[in-house]
């Protein structure tokens, strides 16, 4: 990136200063597209913005097709897109995907639910109480540093190889990012507003609902989305290591069978599912943001 280019022309600045998404974060955001319009370059003769997101995937797909068609790569290393698609359709047809996905999603839902709730509570505890942070903080960080992989040998002895193992490992995976995000979000609440709340002597409940939570929201949702991501990672790990069904298992199986098309189908499913999950969380985030505004707006 040309970080050192001298002065900005308006077009460049347009990019740098494109408006932030938070509803309360500043004047331009208010008008929806206004800020963008203000700084939007003329942009004639360039790829329309609407198509930009598809440019890169399109190019990748095209070169993938080209490389495989030309036979540069052996099929067991890079199967042609058509084969991946065929495998995908075949699996879709025989219910392989639906079954595996359902199993995986159920595990994620449980793990995410448990991990996020406990993680938030624990993070808040560490944030609010210095004493808790002093006693439990280091233990938590050590705990966080042991990946799902490390827990499997111990947990498998206690819990066996059934669902309980997977749920516990997934919960732990969601718990950790949630604690970190909660803690950091708590610490980043502006001191100015904290003082304002102090002098108003807000009750713990009001303080939580009106200051702590709203101020933490962006980072909290960052943490939530990270948790969902971590849940997926651990799901794959645990399904790869100790499972007989699920998308992760399907992918390891693809590797065992030396059929990269199955692996790729698995990756695509994991990717798309993750994307949808993330989109869902974003939507909830916006919804909560809006509702928070509404509620207080109609109040009083």
């Amino acid at each position, binding site marked *: 990136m040309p970080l050192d280019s001298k002065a900005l022309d308006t077009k460049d600045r347009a990019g740098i200063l494109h408006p932030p998404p938070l509803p309360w974060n500043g004047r331009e955001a208010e008008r929806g597209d206004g800020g963008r319009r203000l700084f939007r370059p003329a942009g004639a003769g360039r790829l329309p913005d609407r198509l930009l997101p598809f440019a890169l995937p399109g190019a990748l797909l095209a070169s993938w097709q080209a490389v495989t068609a030309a036979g540069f790569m052996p099929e067991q290393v890079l199967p042609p897109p058509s084969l991946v698609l065929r495998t995908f359709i075949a699996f879709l047809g025989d219910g392989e995907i639906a079954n595996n996905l359902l199993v995986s999603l159920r595990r994620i839902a449980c793990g995410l639910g448990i991990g996020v709730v406990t993680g938030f509570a624990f993070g808040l505890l560490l944030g609010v109480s210095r004493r808790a942070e002093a006693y439990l903080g280091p233990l938590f960080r050590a705990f966080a540093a042991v990946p799902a992989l490390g827990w499997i040998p111990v947990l498998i002895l206690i819990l066996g190889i059934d669902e309980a193992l997977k749920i516990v490992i997934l919960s732990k995976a969601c718990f950790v990012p949630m604690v970190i995000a909660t803690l950091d979000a708590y610490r980043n609440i502006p001191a100015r*507003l904290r003082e304002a709340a102090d002098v108003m002597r807000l009750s713990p409940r009001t303080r939580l609902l009106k200051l702590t939570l709203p101020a933490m929201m962006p980072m909290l949702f960052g943490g939530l989305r990270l948790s969902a991501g971590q849940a997926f990672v651990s799901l794959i790990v645990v399904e790869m290591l100790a499972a007989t069904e699920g998308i992760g298992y399907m992918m390891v199986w693809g590797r065992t069978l030396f059929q990269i098309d199955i692996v790729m189908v698995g990756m695509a499913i994991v990717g798309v599912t993750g994307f949808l999950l993330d989109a869902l969380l974003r939507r909830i985030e916006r919804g909560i943001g809006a509702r928070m505004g509404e509620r207080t707006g109609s109040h009083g």
Partner: protein
Amino acid sequence: MTPVQSSPAPSLAIENVRKTFTVETRTFAALDDVSLTLRHNEIVSILGPSGCGKSTLLRLVAGLETPDAGALFINGRRPVAGPARDCAIVFQDHRLFPWLTVSGNVDLALDSCRLAPAERRERVRRYIALVGLGSFASAYPRQLSGGMAQRAAIARALVAEPALLLMDEPFGALDSLLRTRLQGELLDIWERNRVTILLVTHDVEEAIYLSDRVVVMQPNPGRIRAVVDVGLPRPRQREETAFIALRKSLLELLS
């Protein structure tokens, strides 16, 4: 003034307070040996150059800072930890919560009061109207002008009807008309609610018009240079000769 025997302890007592700050490696006294006593239902203004420690003094009273030396007493009780009850502050910057509307922000200050929901709504409405923001009750802080945000912050401080009101240049960003109106409203509230007010201002006229006593501070280190009794009967007239004379002598004290 309040008869002394009814509440023997002063509303606020500041005794030999000292507060130092460090910028880089340089340590200096923002406040040094400051003592001041406010009787109940008294209005005291603080005048002084920028950086002489006015806001710091208010923050100390509000319990947001701890003094390096000396002590502060509200109603004879030392504020043990953190902000005292029944004491509100208008900060120099408005500090509205960006995610709450004007009424949401004002409502917040009633959190520690036990009010019936209907009364609470009514109170919020009344104080928002008082500062002239009636039609902006459901606006978010970013949708307000500078003066409007300041007024919202004033409403937030007044709504809980505190016994001790700390105000840091509350009318600074307001036009003279509005300023005069709000000064009147403040005096009304003061008469009605028997509230003690400690007010920082840069406007000498405002200080004279509102207060029983005016404290003049000086910087480096922040100290009290003089405490001037206003002693004019209320309502005061800005064109009175006594008013103008006092204004002149205060301006001299300040330079």
